[in-house]
């Protein structure tokens, strides 16, 4: 068994007095697709935000490619280059065009020249199927288009793992499909993905492992067939009964 790409051991996090992540152990191999589900407040988003250190954990360890994440600024920037993140609120830079959104990190982080950066950005915009919107501004795009730009922007950095924090929760039902299609294509191309979502159909089709969290604890993790047909924990069973 090769070194896991991400290894989380005994992760604990408190927001003030609230114990939001309790003794989390999770291992993610390269190429694995993990979908994390659970009720609101279960700590799902906090968990993936701890991975790229948008939140700091107080106890436990996170290892990326075997290296312990220690919060040292230089290591953090290297690690973040290799982890792409897509947010529920898209978080596109509103004062820049779609193309400039993708070109900015390529130039400032990877040091690419303007022309190379534009080329790579256009390739990725074509991959998410919106090359014609390159010169528009985020405010002029629909939610589904904005999210696809956000995915393209993260993919520009050629990350080793993509983190998705409820990417379709802020979208109209009609736009959810276009974003899920992009994510499915990404999964099929072999990208390691950790996705927090409520889209169970997507989870069933794409995930290798489903993780169920409740009140900060990792209750159950299993491949989709086992997860949906033979859930072990009563908590998982009642959650599935509610949503399916």
């Amino acid at each position, binding site marked *: 068994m090769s070194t896991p790409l991400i290894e989380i051991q005994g992760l604990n996090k408190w927001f003030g007095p609230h114990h939001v992540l309790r003794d989390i152990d999770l291992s993610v191999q390269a190429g694995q697709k993990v979908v994390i589900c659970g009720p609101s407040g279960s700590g799902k988003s906090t968990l993936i935000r701890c991975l790229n250190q948008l939140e700091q954990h107080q106890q436990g360890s996170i290892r990326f490619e075997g290296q312990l994440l220690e919060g040292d600024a230089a290591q953090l920037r290297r690690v973040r280059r290799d982890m792409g993140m897509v947010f529920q609120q898209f978080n596109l830079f509103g*004062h820049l065009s779609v193309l400039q959104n993708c070109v900015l990190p390529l130039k400032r982080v990877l040091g690419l020249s303007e022309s190379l950066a534009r080329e790579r950005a256009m390739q990725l915009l074509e991959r998410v199927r919106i090359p014609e919107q390159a010169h528009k501004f985020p405010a002029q795009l629909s939610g589904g288009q904005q999210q696809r730009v956000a995915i393209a922007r993260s993919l520009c950095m050629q990350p080793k793992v993509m983190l998705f924090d409820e990417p379709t929760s802020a979208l109209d039902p009609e736009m959810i499909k276009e974003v899920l299609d992009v994510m499915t294509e990404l999964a099929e191309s072999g990208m390691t993905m950790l996705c927090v979502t409520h889209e169970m159909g997507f989870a069933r089709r794409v995930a290798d492992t489903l993780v169920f969290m409740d009140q900060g604890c990792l209750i159950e993790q299993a491949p989709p067939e086992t997860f949906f047909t033979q859930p072990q924990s009563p908590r998982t069973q009642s959650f599935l009964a509610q949503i399916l």
Partner: protein
Amino acid sequence: MAGDEAAAVIAPRPAPPPARYRWGLLDAFWLALIGTIAVAVAWRSQGALSYNWDWSSVWPFIVKYDSASASWVPNLLLQGLMTTVRLALWGMLLATLIGLLMGWMRNHRRLLLRLIASSYVMTVRNIPPVVFVFIFVYFISSQFMPALALDTRVGQLPAPIQELLSVLFGPLNLINNFFLGLICLSVFTGAYVTEIVRAGLQSVPAGQSEAAHSLGLSDVDTMRWVIWPQALRNVLPSLSGQFIQLIKDSSLVSLVSIQELSFMAQDVQVSTQRVFEVFVLTAGVYFCICFVLSQLFAHLERRHGRSR
């Protein structure tokens, strides 16, 4: 069942022309009433107001013919105007620099920086402008200006540099005076610009810096390319208002004998005894300067403003 057929989507049609405003009887009545009152007031006050307008005594104070150099040279009012314009331009620049620095410090992680910025803002904002001008100018002019000795230092510079400096800062014999007024205005306005900049920085959602950081952008790059551009675009209207206020506040430094437009206007008024003509002219000049500035900012807002 009735109403069971599916309706096709109706194609959009152009909107009907907006209703034209028609003058009604009521409008005519109000116009007549207001017009009658205005004429009656003017007629009555003609008798009461014993003032003879005499603009010809004011024009000589704008430009005068200097027989020594045989050319038209600026007289008091025009000199004052040029000082005001210099105070306004340099003041805006300096106040912006102070405001950007202090605004960034205002919400910094480090306590010391936050304390410096917030005490600066608190001190300046809680003192009326006139009192501030007096304290600042008399304190600085007696304590620091002698040490700086700007006029002697400038006098030692070569002639071409002196030429350039006199274009930028006005007549060199008054350079102490000018800098006093400039620094006073900038420090005063800087406190208000600080609050505007702070509001701008806070108006950028946290998600922007989260997205920038998760892409691997450094703190410096995030501030430079993501946060500052959006922060400043968001507060353009407030900034423009503050700069117009700066131009009007520059008239306060006339109280400490700094020779800008308001000071000169008072001087001319005293010697010609033509209160209204002088001050109406001065008001008109300030109006033009502020109006031009506000149009400039309106243009900037249209091009780079918030809703893009």
